């Protein structure tokens, strides 16, 4: 398959400190690629290097075959991007903003502007000043701007930041729609669930290094999920669970997010186990006259994924 974006051995040193170490990955035509990492992991710095806002210390970025650092004008013609927040001119109207960015591209006229306005569903407010827009509307205007030049690659940096659940859902559907039309999308996020719902493949970055790259589903399988039990007789229940060799009981204090897993359930027992084993465990507990108040499966989070990944690294 054709590579729309290829990043090879990217390094960036700022004031003597290397903040990006040897980052390489590829985005193929038509796929949604997730760029996953906690805040401060180097996601935004990497993205800035992709679009020529920052010059890499070494390594190369190619977009549609064009070297971004050597031929930025040719490479950037195929990219639409929003770096961090959708920053547009608040003293102009939405239309004036699009008109402004259209003038920076060849062959983008009024019909194309009207088209992108329809695509992002901003027809009603497009002639209002941007300062009256909500964040969601600004986000859509930013995407409209990015789409003006009919790019092959769309880069969205933390696009769901600050959006409400409805806005996030809309954005998700919108990105899927664009991708189905053949556009490649690179999305960065610090939320695994976000990436899981959207992306085909993902690269995980931490501390300026790519930890792993691969299919989202494969990666999620690597991470252990948790099963949280709430029982009416906590002490007896704990003993009963401990006896089962297939169940590992986990100390909530040892987990960085143990607090949030146990939110509202101070007596809950956090375990690590196969989900297939849950029904017979419930049965066994009931036989021992221990009432099961609730069983809850917590999806693996980015944190667990990191933990399992760093564990692997240490072993290797």
């Amino acid at each position, binding site marked *: 398959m054709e590579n729309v974006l290829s990043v090879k051995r990217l390094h960036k040193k*700022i004031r003597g400190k290397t903040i990006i170490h040897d980052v390489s990955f590829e985005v193929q035509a038509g796929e949604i690629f997730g760029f996953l990492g906690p805040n401060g992991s180097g996601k935004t710095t990497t993205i*800035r290097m992709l*679009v*020529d*806002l*920052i*010059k890499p210390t070494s390594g190369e970025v190619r977009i549609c075959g064009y070297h971004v650092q050597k031929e*930025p*004008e*040719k*490479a*950037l*013609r195929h*990219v639409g*991007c929003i*770096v*961090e*927040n959708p*920053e*547009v*001119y*608040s*003293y*102009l109207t939405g239309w*004036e903003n699009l008109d*402004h*960015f259209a*003038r*920076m*591209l*060849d062959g983008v006229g009024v019909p194309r502007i009207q088209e992108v306005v329809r695509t992002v569903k901003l027809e009603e407010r497009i002639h209002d000043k941007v300062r009256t827009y909500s964040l969601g509307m600004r986000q859509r205007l*930013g995407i409209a*701007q990015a789409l003006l*030049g009919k790019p092959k690659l769309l880069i969205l940096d933390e696009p769901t930041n600050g959006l409400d659940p409805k806005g996030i859902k809309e954005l998700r559907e919108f990105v899927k729609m664009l991708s189905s039309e053949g556009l490649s999308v690179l999305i960065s996020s610090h939320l695994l669930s976000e990436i899981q719902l959207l992306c085909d493949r993902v690269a995980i970055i931490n501390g300026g290094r790519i930890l792993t790259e691969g299919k989202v589903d494969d990666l999620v399988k690597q991470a252990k999920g948790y099963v949280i039990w709430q029982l009416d007789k906590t002490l007896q229940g704990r003993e009963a669970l401990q006896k089962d060799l297939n169940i590992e009981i986990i100390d909530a204090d040892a987990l960085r997010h143990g607090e949030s897993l146990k939110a509202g359930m101070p007596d809950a027992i956090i375990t690590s186990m196969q989900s297939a084993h849950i029904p017979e465990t419930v049965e066994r507990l009931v036989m021992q006259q221990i009432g099961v108040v609730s069983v809850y499966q917590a999806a693996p989070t980015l944190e667990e994924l990191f933990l399992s990944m760093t564990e692997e690294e240490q072993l290797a």
Partner: protein
Amino acid sequence: MPKIIPLIENETLKIWKKRRFFVIVLILLALIPIFTYAELKVAKNNAAKFKDWRNQVMQQITDFQNTLSSDRVPEEWKRSRRVAVQQLQYYLDHDVNPSAPNGVTFTRSFLDNAVSLFIPLLVLALGSDIVSGERTTGTIKMLLTRPVKRSKVLFSKLCALTMYVSLTVAVTVLLCYAIAGLFFGYSGWGMPVFTGFQVTGSVVDSSRAHAIPQWLYLMMQAGLTWYSAMIVALLAFMVSVLIRSTAASMMTMMAAVIAGTILSGMSSSWTSAKYLFAVNLKLTGYLDGSPPPIDGMSLPFSLTILAIWGICALVVSFGVFTKQDILN
């Protein structure tokens, strides 16, 4: 690759929509009538006291000469008074009223006073946020990720700034004339004005002094005003590239301009101050023969120094802007 004209259109539109120019016109509309009114009061006063303008000029000369004999007047002041006395005498000898109240004369004296501080401040309002404003709001990221060379983006901003600076000088002249004309009449274009005085120390050499019509004088003044305004604009442009915050870049330039005004007022014995840009801004002073702030300065000298400052500012602006990492 898009052509440069649409980019200039963009930048011009942004400055216009930010209403910067609108504010400048408002300031002019508020200030000029105030000065006009003050000038009108002076003119009425003089008209009541002196039947003939010659008496008024003679009185002025006597006043100046009196201050010259006083010990308490600082030497710097005396120097400029001595020069003024000789020039007034020259006007008197040639039977020309140096301050006949009319729209054109008012415009001329307004420009004289505005060139070193007022016009530069207006220009700063236009130029200080031209790049830093985009960084403060983050829109620079949108601007620089488009398939356009960074140098082209900066050049388009420079063109837009040049246009607005030119417009500011033109509007200042036009508004002055229009408003002052209401009170003093719109005549005075053909009135003779003397130029070409050579000032060395406190001696005025009037051998090369000659009369030119006031319209020509005003045109020359406007040209020189434009020149110094452009240099201030270029420096503001550079500072705006170097400093991310709009407020800080505006303050830096204001401090520099005001410091220059203060320095030239001190007529200092620190002669190397003449290489500072802000001391050289009052180019129109060379036209009417007022003594330069520091000995050894002349019109060609000031033009050259300002040009050097302007070119350096451009080199730094383009050098930094095309290379720098956009980190915020």
